[in-house]
């Protein structure tokens, strides 16, 4: 298990890379953006971006909003 901070919550995850993490959460990768340690992870790099202890991951999407 890898200890990461996922959307602000400490989490133990089995996923070895970003693609496995996103798919394991049941999220459609086309509808989100991922940031790892304040760096954007391009969709094409999900598979080749490993998860390591202490990583800070943010998974975001578009929600309703005006100002």
């Amino acid at each position: 298990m890898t200890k990461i901070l996922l959307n602000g919550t400490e989490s133990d995850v089995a996923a070895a890379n970003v693609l496995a993490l996103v798919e394991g959460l049941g999220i459609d990768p086309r509808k989100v953006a991922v940031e790892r340690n304040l760096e954007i992870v391009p969709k094409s790099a999900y598979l080749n971006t490993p998860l390591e202890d202490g990583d800070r991951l943010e998974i975001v999407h578009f929600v309703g909003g005006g100002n």
Partner: protein
Amino acid sequence: MTDSWTVAGRTFNSRLIVGTGKYKDYEQNAAAARASGAEIVTVAVRRVNLTDPNQPMLMDYVKQDEFTYLPNTAGCFTGEDAVRTLRLAREAGGWNLVKLEVLSDPKTLYPDMEETLRSLKLLVKDGFDVMVYCSDDPVYAKKLEEAGACAIMPLGAPIGSGLGIQNKVTLRIIIENAKVPVLVDAGVGTASDAAAGMELGCDAILMNSAIAEAKDPVRMAVAMKHAVIAGREAYLAGRMPKKLYADPSSPLAGLI
């Protein structure tokens, strides 16, 4: 007759941009956006709810083949937050056209113009086309334009206040001096406010609460669509001069 406007090389026919916040649900939101005739909708970037990833998603209702998404930085209070948010938005959807707003005081939601200008410079350097929410200050509006803003978006009144346009004089000055599109952003409460904004000669109006908080949002969206068209047409037509005294519109000659 088409009366389109262009921002950063993209041309739109509707002069109304609507927000997607505060609605009862995404279904009502989509219905109101369609009724408004808007081609652009503003959207926010937030964390995915990981405990319930099957929650309804904006993209499934307000669809991108129907609307141009304009990601905003609502809720950002520093330049770094704004840049980070818009980079994520760009990655989520590939958009370069974004709306920058950097706020200061949570009570007034007034923009922090010093920080806004600094953020704008960071985003322009990063290749974004940036529409900028700003105070109705002609000096700062000019500074934003010089720093590369692709549109200037002064407030008509505080965000979500519905007070209507408070300072027509400063908005007129901003509009007359800008070489990029000027949009009145925030402050509209009802249809006449939207028409009044368009009569000043601005290129478009952005609103959210005025539609979302109406008792019947879809009906208010229709009202806003007409108000924006009416205001624009009145501006292009050129209003009659104001006079102190009456001036009959029936001939005085030939009276019996």
